Structures are given as structure tokens and as C-alpha cells.
């Protein structure tokens, strides 16, 4: 199939429909209004249902209902709206309901602004709402990857009966890139769900319950979720290693920040600096093991984020003090240029004497 030039928000919508999504419930918020706009028309064409709800609260609860009834369902929003949806996301996780939630992150806190940001990392990767739970969080860095991850998101949601979040940002939603879409799936090919609400015809009634008053029962439910999350950690971690083979310093960045990092790496490579990138494609589960392995040979890491520093905490957890972890980020919707990041790389690279010969590859920037 020929590539189509499309903006990120439309890519998300088109990929969702091709992945079998037939139900979308949303509420307008910039910078993702093109998602509900696209879905309102596209779902009409395929006989699906689009509801513009009265609030983010209502829309995420409509998602809960649609998922209970067995629908492939999604919603999307941007940071302040995602905060409002957190109650429902906690319920989705507790009720073990599959759903896809896209967050085109904007500057915060509060109303913030409508510029691209990555400041919802903590919220997304630590659950976000109340209770012991996790969302699977996918972080695309291009429109093509947004398309592919949207397909993946619906399958992961069904596989684990858990909410899956797609973390983009204002830039990803707006930018246009050529995308090759997979063929639309055949809805009949999806595995049957034996737990949905459909009316108790010829079977005992089902109850999908959130209230588990007995602490022993809720403890077991929490452990059941924990075992599920353990399986996600074992099976679903994904990352990209970029020019890390000979690298003496590695940047860690995801999404839009990773693209900027690649631009910076191209610049410093021209100057002979051996710098690579590790790009988490899943933010939860986080590629702790990959970073731990990397830190055996690379002792200088530079985390780049469109925030004042959130993912850096996971990087530090991953390398357990074995590598020096530095940070460069711009919060509040400011987007650094590749040149800006290249300056930061240069600073840390020479400070650690990484330009000097080191046959072991460890001494220069290494352990104190």
C-alpha cells in the first residue's frame, strides 16, 4: 500500500479504526482536537459510534461501559483532560477492562499551555490514579510508529485486560509524515471475550465489580494484578538502541525528545564524538535491564526530556549508580533544538575526558 501523508492526530484515528476500534468517547482539548474530529467522521463511515461527552469524566466512564460490553474502545485527551480521566483509568485497571487512552501531552502543571511537553511521565508510568496499578505506556517517536503502536495498543489492552496509554505530545499530534497503514483487521478474527456483560441469556449473571470490601479478597485481586504486571514486564519491554555499539556516552530519550537527540548525535558524530541513544518505546514497562546491561560498558548517560526531569529517575533506578546520569530538559512547552542538545553533549563528553584513549572503555567517565 502506498504511503499517505498525514498528521499525527489523524494517524492515531485512522490506525485505531483499522485496528478494529468502533467506539470513541471524547471531549475537546488542544492539542488533540483533530483526534475526535477525525473519529466523528471516520466511525460514521464504518458503522461505529462516536460520542462527544460532556466532560473527560463522562467520556472515560463511557469507555468503561463500552469495554464492559465488549467493544474495542478508545478515548484521547491532553494533560489536564488526562488528569480528569485518572479516576476512570484506575477503575479500568481495577475492573480489568481493556481500553486505549491517548495523551497528547502539553505543558503543565494546571492549565499550563498547549505546547509539546513530556511532563506527564510520572503520572503515566506510576498509574496516575489511586490504588496499586499500572498502565502499559507506549511512546511513539514518529507518525509511522504512532500508527504501529496504536495497532499494538489495542492488542495489548485485550491481551492483558488493562488500559494502554499512548503517550504523544503536541508536536506528534500536529506534525505530518508519510505513513504506511496496515490493512484493516477483520473484527471477526479477534479472540472472543468470555467475561463481558451481554445479558444473562442461558448462563448465570455476570458482575464486573470494583468494590471488594473484604481485605483478603482485595489483597488477592491486587496480587492477581501484580502477577499480570510481572508478565507485562517479562514480555512487553521495548526499546531502540541507536549507534550504541561504539558509544562512550549514551543519551536516553523517548518520543519527540529522542528525535531531537538523534539530530544532536548526528552533529556530534561529525565532530568524532562516540555518542549513541537508548530510546524507550515502552515507558512502562521501562527498559531497566537494557540500561543496566549498557551501563557495564558506558558510564556516561545524558537523559533528555521535554520536562524538568522525570524519566531520569527510572534511568537512575536502572543503572543503580554504575553510570553517571546527567540531565538536560526544557519544561513548560519549550522544545530544545538539536544544536542545543549537541552543546550539552559536548560539555559532558569533554568533562569526562571521553575523547581520550581508553582501551577498557571504562576508566574515563566511570566510577568514582
Amino acid at each position, binding site marked *: 500500500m502506498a504511503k499517505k501523508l498525514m498528521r499525527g492526530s489523524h494517524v492515531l484515528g485512522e490506525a485505531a479504526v483499522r485496528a478494529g476500534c468502533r*467506539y470513541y*468517547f471524547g471531549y475537546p482539548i488542544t492539542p488533540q482536537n483533530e483526534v475526535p474530529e477525525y473519529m466523528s467522521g471516520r466511525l460514521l463511515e464504518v458503522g461505529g*459510534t462516536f*460520542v462527544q*461527552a*460532556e*466532560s473527560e*469524566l*463522562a*467520556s472515560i*466512564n*463511557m*469507555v*468503561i*461501559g*463500552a*469495554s*464492559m*460490553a*465488549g*467493544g474495542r*474502545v478508545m478515548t484521547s485527551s491532553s494533560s489536564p483532560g488526562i488528569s480528569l480521566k485518572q*479516576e*476512570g483509568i484506575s*477503575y479500568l485497571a481495577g*475492573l480489568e477492562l481493556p481500553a486505549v487512552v491517548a495523551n497528547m501531552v502539553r505543558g503543565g502543571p494546571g492549565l499550563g499551555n498547549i505546547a509539546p511537553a513530556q511532563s506527564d511521565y510520572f503520572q503515566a508510568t506510576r498509574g496516575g490514579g489511586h490504588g496499586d496499578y499500572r498502565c502499559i505506556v507506549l511512546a511513539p517517536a514518529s507518525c509511522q510508529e504512532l500508527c504501529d503502536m496504536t495497532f499494538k495498543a489495542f492488542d495489548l489492552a485485550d491481551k492483558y485486560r488493562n488500559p494502554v496509554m499512548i503517550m504523544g505530545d503536541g508536536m506528534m499530534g500536529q506534525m505530518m509524515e508519510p505513513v504506511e497503514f496496515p490493512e484493516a483487521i477483520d473484527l471477526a478474527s479477534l479472540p472472543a471475550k468470555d467475561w463481558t*456483560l*451481554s*445479558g*444473562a*441469556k*442461558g448462563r448465570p*449473571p*455476570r*458482575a*464486573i*465489580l*470494583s*468494590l471488594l470490601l473484604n481485605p483478603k479478597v482485595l489483597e488477592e485481586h491486587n496480587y492477581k494484578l501484580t502477577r499480570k504486571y510481572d508478565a507485562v514486564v517479562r514480555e512487553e519491554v521495548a526499546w531502540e538502541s541507536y549507534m550504541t555499539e561504539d558509544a562512550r556516552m549514551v543519551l536516553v530519550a523517548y518520543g519527540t525528545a529522542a528525535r531531537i537527540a538523534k539530530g544532536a548525535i548526528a552533529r556530534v558524530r561529525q565532530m568524532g564524538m562516540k555518542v549513541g541513544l537508548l530510546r524507550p518505546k515502552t515507558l512502562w514497562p521501562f527498559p531497566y535491564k537494557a540500561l543496566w546491561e549498557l551501563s557495564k560498558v558506558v558510564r556516561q548517560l545524558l537523559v533528555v526530556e521535554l520536562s524538568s526531569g522525570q524519566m531520569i529517575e527510572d534511568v537512575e533506578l536502572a543503572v543503580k549508580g554504575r553510570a553517571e546520569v546527567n540531565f538536560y530538559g526544557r519544561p513548560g512547552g519549550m522544545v530544545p533544538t538539536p544544536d542545543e542538545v549537541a552543546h550539552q553533549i559536548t560539555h559532558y563528553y569533554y568533562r569526562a575526558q571521553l575523547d581520550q584513549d581508553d582501551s577498557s572503555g571504562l576508566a574515563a567517565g566511570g566510577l568514582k
Partner: protein
Amino acid sequence: MKKVFEAPKSLKPNIFHYCPGCGHSLIHRLVAEVFDELGIREDVIGVPPAGCAVLAYNYFDVDMGEAPHGRALAVATGIKRVLPEKIVFTYQGDGDIAAIGTAETIHAANRGENITAIFVNNGVYGMTGGQMAPTTLPGMNSTTTPGGRDVDRDGSPLNLTEMLAIAKGSVFLERVAVTSPAKVKKAKKAIKTAFQTQIDGKGFSLVEVLSACPTNWKMSPVQACKWIESDMTKVFPLGNIKDETGYK
């Protein structure tokens, strides 16, 4: 021997956990009888509230999915949009439907969602121990209105069902009570009409049931029923509020 009375098939044979004199068990039974009579039990999907009826799935012998506090009509909207041929109902208290869930309620009605809501109004937050509800009467005692509800300080009770009548999508709205055999019969008739409205695809239907909470009102069940008829119905008058069903 001829059987003249039996438990509704749409109720599970479980003992209600509700307090003595509480209206919930009676209202559960009426709803279940309506399911039996309309022959819809196997097509019904219910959404209980957060509140005293949160355990309703223990009693209704139908599929049920729990909603967050106040969001029952949004959850029900999601279910109904995926399964439009099923009979979807919410069962909500006054705090759930008329305070925290006001927006979801008004917009579900205004969209004309083809759903039935059973709204149990007892004028207090029962499960949390008798705090002021949006429907607490002026002067009425609650644990958060010392000296009784003072309208200057605490605002006035909200007539949600009358508000919903303004919404174009609402089709059948009625307020009933379960304080006497005659009123119970009327209540059941309204509940049956509400579900028939949905079966016929006409749009949003709601029955508000004035219901006693002797525990939090600190009255005997008999006193509580009398008080509903003497005081509560002055603020919440019984009767049909909107009927655009076209039924005779």
C-alpha cells in the same frame, strides 16, 4: 395448592443487607417484578451506584457492572452504545445521581440515551452515615447540617427530575413513593412504563422513588413513611413529571 405469591425470578434468593424499614429492598423487588413481567431478565444489564445499593448485584439476577460514584449514566451510555438491543438501567441514590453525577445525568437525558434510571431519593447520604444530600429538606437534620439544613447556609434541595423535564431527550419522568400499598402499586406501574419506554426505543426514562431511611432519619419505619407523605412530598410532589411516550 395454587401458588398465589412468590419471589420474582429476577431476584437472587439472597437476604437483603438493607436496614429495617429501608425502601431499597422494596424497590429492588418492584424492578425485579417488572423484569419478570416484561420477560426481559436475560437482556438486562444493570449499573449500580456507589451508595447503599452498591451491592445490588447480590440481589438482581442480571448482568451488572459497577460504576464510579455518580458516573452510572455515563457507564450505561457506553454499554448501551455497544449493545443497543439490550435493556440497560442504572440504579442510583440522590447523592450519586443529583450531586456528584449531575452532569452525567443531565447529559444522558439530554442526549436521549435509551436507558432507564431508577433514582432512589431518601434525602441523605445513607452509606456514609447520614450527611446532607442535594435532596435534604430545609430544616432536616443531617450529620453535616448542624441545627438542620439552613437554606441560607446550605442551599435548597434540588428537584433534579423537574430539571430533567426541560431536556429534550427525556421521554418519561415520574416521581413515586413506596409508603403504602396503593403507592407501591403506582410505583411499579411507573417503573414498568419506564422500561417499556426503553423497549420501544423512545428515549430516556427515569423514575424517582421517595424512599425511607429510618436509620439516618432516626425515626421508626412507620414514622418515616408518614414523614415522607407529610413533609417530603411537599418539596418533591408525587406524580408524572413528563410523559411523551404516547402510551394510553
